[in-house]
Structures are given as C-alpha cells and as structure tokens.
C-alpha cells in the first residue's frame, strides 16, 4: 500500500529525515516509536502532504503512485488520513459540517451522491458510538475549546467517518485517560481490516496492548535505527532509547 524509499526531507534548510525506508502492506499495523524530535510527526506529515517539508531525495509510493506532486486533499480523497498529534482548532466551522463536507468529497470521488445534513446525521450515529462520543460535539466548532483528550477522540471520529485506507495516527494515545484509551483503541481496531493499514506513532507500550502492531520501528535522528515485531516495544519500554542508539553505534554511523 505504502512504500517509502530512501526518504530525505528538510524544513527551512534543516534535514530532518535522513533516509527512511518503510513498506506498509494492506492489513498491517506499524508502530513508529522514537525519542522527541526524532522526526516521527514529520514523517506522518510528509506522507499526508504537508507543504512546509521539502522532500530532497527518495520517494513515497502509495497504491502504485508517486505522491510527490499530489496535494494533501487529493491524498485524503484517495484514502490517506492523518490523526494529528496536535489537532487544529477551526473557528466558525461546526464539527459535523466539516465531517459532512469531507465525507461528501470522498463520495464525490467515488461517484456517489453527497449526503444531505439529515442523511449524514443517520450515517454518523454508528461512528459516534464507535468512539463513545456525545452528539453534542457535532455542533461545536472543530476542536474549539475541546479538552486534549476530546480532541484526540474527535480525530478518531473523523477517521471513522472517512474510513481511510491508510491511517497515520500521530500520538493519538497521548492525552487520553485510561478508559478513553481503551475505547478509542477499540474503535481503531474495528476500523482496521485486511484492506486497511495503520501507521501508529506512539511513545508508550500502553496503546500497543490494545492495538497489536505487526511491526515496530524505532526512529532516531531521522533514521529508522531498528525494526522488529511487537516485542521490540516491550524491550524499549524496559531499556529506553539509549539501548537502540548504543546498539547501532557499532557501525559508527549514528550520532
């Protein structure tokens, strides 16, 4: 589904990604871990098409197509979704209006008729249940005044509405309380299937107890320093990132 080859990227002249290779197939869950500032969010944003980051080398292939020239909205309509680490507040737009417009864009892409507000209301009931979210959040402006946890839950509600092929979840777990983490993870699991893939950025093993990753990658200083199965997350939890860095310093490349 997604193939990233030797991806180098910079922002304002600083190189942040220094050669990432990653292959995500349909049905897989990939966890991305790594220290603060190592480039995890950058990677997710670049796949989603953020214009501030310049890809200087390498390529990103999604469903056989090079994403280089594709606008973020087109990527979204083709099934890429990003749940933000810091969801943005949009004044003046109700949550339901945004989701309806967004969903209708995807329907349009598929040649389906748009849903009117009433039809959309019916459609969204299940999605609200999935993340156990109160319908009152629909009338509020997007993320405006939402608590940290509410914002994260709202991201997954949007994911449920849009039903993406590839979901990039950037620290969806941080900010969620224990119950919310269980509920939201349960929602994500229901959305995952053999035709979808998930790239999950996290700092903690906790969420991986609910969402079992097929692969865990450790991103350090713009490179994937180590990849492994779900046990890798446990090892990291125990030893910290220094253990990865120490391990890889043998070949003398990493700093």
């Amino acid at each position: 589904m997604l193939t990233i080859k030797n991806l180098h990227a910079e922002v304002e002249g600083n190189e942040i990604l220094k050669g990432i290779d990653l292959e995500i197939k349909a049905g897989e869950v990939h966890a991305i871990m790594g220290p603060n500032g190592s480039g995890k969010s950058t990677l997710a944003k670049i796949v989603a098409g953020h214009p501030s980051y310049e890809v200087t080398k390498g390529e990103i292939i999604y469903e056989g197509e090079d994403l280089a020239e594709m606008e973020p909205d087109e990527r979204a309509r083709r099934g890429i979704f990003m749940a933000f680490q810091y969801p943005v507040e949009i004044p003046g737009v109700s949550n339901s209006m945004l989701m309806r417009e967004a969903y209708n864009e995807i329907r349009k892409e598929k040649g389906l008729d748009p849903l009117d507000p009433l039809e959309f209301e019916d459609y969204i009931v299940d999605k609200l249940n999935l993340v156990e979210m109160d319908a009152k959040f629909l009338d509020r402006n997007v993320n405006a005044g939402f608590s940290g946890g509410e914002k994260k839950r709202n991201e997954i509600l949007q994911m449920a509405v849009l039903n993406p092929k590839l979901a990039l979840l950037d620290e969806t777990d941080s900010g969620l309380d224990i119950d919310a983490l269980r509920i939201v993870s349960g929602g994500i699991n229901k959305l995952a299937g053999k035709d979808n893939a998930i790239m999950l950025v996290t700092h903690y093993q906790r969420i991986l107890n609910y969402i079992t990753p097929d692969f865990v990658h450790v991103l350090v200083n713009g490179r994937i320093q180590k990849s492994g199965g779900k046990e890798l997350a446990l090892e990291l939890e125990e030893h910290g990132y220094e253990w990865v860095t120490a391990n890889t310093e043998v070949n003398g490349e990493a700093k």
Partner: protein
Amino acid sequence: MTDNAKETLFLDRLLDRFDAAKSAHEKVAGLQSEAAREITGKELPTTRHEEWKYCSLKSLNKESFVPAASIPSPNLPKDAIGYIYPEAEHHHLTFINGVFSEALSKTDRLPDGVIVANLADVLRDGNEIAIENLGELAKWEDDPFVPLNTAVFRDGAFIYVPKGVKIADPIQLLFINTEEAEQYVMAPRCLVVGDQFSEMTVVEDHIGMGSNVYFNCPVSEIKLAENSHMTHVKLQRDSRQAYHISRLAADISRDSDYKSYAVQLGSQLSRSDVKAVLTDENTHATLDGLVMVNGEQLSDTHSVMDHTMPNCTSHQLHKCIIDGNGTSVFNGKIFVRQDAQKTDAFQENRNLQLSNSGTAYAKPQLEIFADDVSCSHGATIGQLNPEEVFYLKTRGLQDAQTREILTYGFALDVIESIPVASIQKRLSKEVEKFTRESKSIKELA
C-alpha cells in the same frame, strides 16, 4: 459635458446641478445655503492631506454626475421588496436612488409616538426634534462631504423613539441604487433620535443593482439620550463601480449604549468616517467593522472614538479581508479627554490577506489626556493560517472550500455580533461569494 464645465471644480459642478434642491423649511434651507457656501470654490482633498493619504479621489474628481432625483423613471428591479429583511417586514423605508418610495415603505405596528418617516416630509412639517438636531452632530473639520450632503440632500430617514419605548424588531432603511445609463449622485440624510430609556435597532442597507458608476454620499446623525440603547447595522453593497463616501456621527449620553456594525462590500472606492462621542458617564460605544475588498476596490475607514467623561467603555473590532489588488485602510483615533478617568477602550484591526497583491494600511492613533485609563489597541496583517489550511486539506477539502471556511471563520465574530439572524445569513453568503471570486490558494502560493 462642455469643455468649460470640465475645467470647473468637482464640488462646484455638483452644486450647480442641484440648484433647485432646497428644503421647504426655512431654517433648514438656511443650513443648506450655508453648507453650499462653505464648499463653493473648494477642491476635493488630495493624498497630500493626512486624512486622505491612501484614498485618492482623483478618479472621482474627473467624473460628472446628475442628481439622482432627476432620473425620470429608474430601472427598479421587480423583486425590490425581496431586499427587506423578514425581521423588518413591518417597519422599513425604501429609497430608490436616494428618493423616498412610499409604495415600497411600511411603518405599521410601530408603538405610539414613534416616528419612522421621510426626513424631507418631517422637516417640511416643522418637526421640532428633527429641526433642532439636524446638522448638530455630523461635524468634521476641513471636510467637504458633510457640507455637500447638507447642501443638496432632500429625502432621507428620520427616526424618533420616545421616552421608554423599546422596539425589538429592526427598522430597515433600504437604499436601492439602480442601474442607469446616466451617472448619478445622491446624498441621503438620516437622523435618529432616541429619547431616554428607548431601545431600537436600525439597519441601513445600501444596495447597487448593477455595475454602474454612481456617487452615494450619505450622512447619518444619531443622538441618544440617557439610558437609551441603539444597535446600528450598516451594509454597504453598492455597485462595484460606485463611489460611496459616508459620514456617521453619534452622540451618546449618560448610561447609554450605542453599537455600530458597519459592513463594507461594494464600491470601487468606499470611504467611511465614523465618530462616536461619549458625552457623559457610564456610556458604551461599539464601532465594529467588516470589510471585504478584491479586484481594484479600496475601502477606507476613519474612526473617532471620543471619550469625554469618566467611566465609559468602547469597543472597536475592525476586520478586513483583502484579495486581488484590493486595499483596506483603517485609521482609528481614540481620544481620552482629561476628564475621562477610568476609561476602558479596546481597539483591534485585523487584516486577512488572501492575495500577495492586496494592501492593508492600519493606523491606530491614541491621544490620552487622562491618567487612570485602560486602552488597548492592536493591528495585525496575516494570511490564512497554513496549519489550519493543511488540517482541512487532510480531510479532503479542496482549496476553494478550505479558503471559504477559514475566511468565514475569520469574519465570524463580527458577523455573529450582529443581532439580526437574516443579516447573519446574508453575510455568510457574501463571504461565500467573495471567496468564490478568488483565485485558489494554490495559484497564489
């Protein structure tokens, strides 16, 4: 136009055309003659004039206009009545090219003693309140446009709300300006007097029907007695080729509250000078604005908030959305006089630039002579927030939708504070129309 006339001064040329237009009331006719004398032989201000620095009247100066009232049968649209807001169904005055239209006006269901009528009639009948207040409020130094209006006005609105009377529904003053082959000028005059403990909402709506050149030069005067409340909404939707130069002055007495929301959308050149004088204690004034300019439009707002007495508050949120080669100018003066202790004045000018070629000039001017006051002012110029744009685009929204949504979000707080639901709806449509006229974000990036 003869070659001879071309050489004469713009104001003289205009006055010349209006010879016959004098009020039937003797005192008012006197005022009119005096105003005419005041501008006879005067030139229009140039950009060398500090207050006109960014607002060139060069093109206006070259135009010629006939008095709008002299157009025998204006091209009145069939659906003119559709411009009446449902909330104002029972009290509205309509003016066609500045001329009062009895047929399109309605003033039933007004409480006893309330007057909502054509100013020309009221003055002719010698209404003392009108005669006493006319010309007493709109005073600017060194300004030709109030005298021009005074010299030539005939029709307009007079609103009087007596002591203790509260009118919940808005009173609409609808100015329909038609599409004509001839270029015309009009100078409608409005006078609003709210007596003690009165309450009202007035909507002044100027709408151009075509894309023709005309010159709209309205003056409004507002006088509020103690404990009165007025909300004043002005919508300027004149033709995109029109000139709109307006003056608004309000005197606000003790324990009173005046809220003005001015929305400027139309005209190639719109210049509006507004002045609120807080004449006594515990007074509040709001002068909020929303401006949208694109193409070659210029919209210039000069405001004066004059705090003369203690314990008063004022609020000014002036938002401008600039696209294409549009220009917005905001010059906001706040005076806090020596006696005006405990003044709390807020002023903010925010400009949203949707294109690289638009221009915004912001000049807050605070002159504070009292020592115990709280005054804040700020001016910002910015583009759409790229993180917000990115967020919406990752949801699959296209450039145009993204731009529309975020622009609406920018304008929203001004729109939402206008307490008439159908105007809010109208304005959200106007924002939509405005952003659709725009180029896509991508093209501009």
